[in-house]
């Protein structure tokens, strides 16, 4: 993980900052330069809801590099209360406790350590609410 690559996404990963189209109100996470609904290029920064529910999930039992220590872990597509969906881990939740519709709350967590230097990467996860 290159520091600049990690650094530039801090607003999204640390603070759940998304972009809302000033013309039609559509929300984009990550923020983008062009609205696919109305083609507007004007956006305002908003913070996403920190509560939601599990839309779908899996239990990762063959983890990618950097995630071995956490395996098995629950991964989910979470629908936040403002309707935005994101892929994130469900922490503090056993493989048998997760279900579609499980109410969850977003928390700021360590994601993993990557590279030889062990850059610590942080971001969002959810926990059962």
């Amino acid at each position, binding site marked *: 993980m290159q520091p600049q690559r990690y650094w530039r*996404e801090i607003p999204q*990963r640390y603070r759940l900052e998304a972009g809302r189209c000033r013309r039609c109100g559509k929300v984009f*996470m*990550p923020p983008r330069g062009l609205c696919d609904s109305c083609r507007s290029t004007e956006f305002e920064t908003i913070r996403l809801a920190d509560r939601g529910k599990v*839309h*779908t*999930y*899996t*239990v*990762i*039992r*063959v*983890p*990618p*590099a950097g*995630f071995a220590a*956490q395996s*098995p*872990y629950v*991964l*989910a*597509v979470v629908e936040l209360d403002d309707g935005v*969906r*994101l*892929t*994130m*881990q469900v922490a503090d939740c056993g*493989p048998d406790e997760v279900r*579609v519709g499980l109410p969850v709350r977003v928390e700021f967590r360590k*994601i*993993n350590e990557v590279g030889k230097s062990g850059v610590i*990467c942080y*971001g*969002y*996860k959810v926990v059962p609410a």
Partner: protein
Amino acid sequence: MREVAVIGAGMSRWGELWHQDLRDLSCEAVLKALAETKADRVDSIHVGCMTGGLFAGQEHLASVMADCLGFAGVPASRSESACASGGVAFKAAYAEVAAGLCDVALVVGVEKMTDVGGDEATYALGTAADQEYECYNGATFPGLYAMMAVRHMHEFGTTRRQLSQVAVKNHSNGLLNPEAQYHAKITAEEVESSAHVADPLRLLDCSPITDGAAALVLCPLDMAKKLGKKAPVKVLAIGHATDTIALHSRKDVCRLAAVEKAAERAYKAASLKPEDIDLAEVHDCFTIAEIMVTEALGFARRGEGGKLVASGATAIGGKIPVNTSGGLKSKGHPVGATGVAQLVELAVQLRGEAGGRQVKKPSAGLAQNMGGTGGSSIVSILGVA
């Protein structure tokens, strides 16, 4: 636009082939495809390869391929659309021939995947998903498809057993295909007791890591008699579409919109309906994928792809045989080669040369190739000329 024919089709050996590299595999497939033709030249080369860089440390495949195939000097280019790279290379070659930019076009799809270890292969394949917003948070490809499966099961009542039936059928077909990576009959119980990968998917729900190449030779239909040795196969239509890169960005996570759009475009261009298709090669990278793809192609109603495979309709001899070659599941999945190999199977079937897995007198076959979790898809329909 000129009508276009496939006059040559060939595959290298597929499997874990430590003694062969990108060039050896490509050369083997291309020599077989060219041997089916009387072409004494190649005007253009199109390479389909997902990531020669990450798997084999080799990019600039246009030059590498032209060189190793003995055609240095011929224009070549490489198409990339993750696991749909092969299908997209075919489209590029088709377009050139149809437009009259060249007469004899060679398509080669290739991937050399076993020169890297498991973590590196997972990383390389993961680049077909959203690196920043899926993989960063611990997603893997089996994990993303597993999440589609969980939602499909939740919404439509698709069962664990129906997933298994896809694997059982495709391995049963693969037994009849000498080119397949695996020749092993498996049972639903074996699928359901194989190692966990990403719940509910197990090892035998997943397509394997494969080294392999596949090749096609295209020319204008009106030159097919002169340049070909066998009955030509005609390209009836190609439909191509994209969708969001991240699964979570889709309104419906168990609907493959890119496949639906690509199919709609192909059916329209060929003036055909799903019921006019005699066999289909589809992108069964995971068992759930085949179920969802058969729905997107119109072979089953929405949510009923599981019932379709359970009914036996997609077996050889069924109403719409799917993956007679063994599919990605049993034939193997060298990602960049897959889309080209699907078309090789259609050509073999349409010529009536498929031996024990031959579908009875097919007149139209469909190939559906897909990148990532459905972020891109290409549907090609071939027919008897």
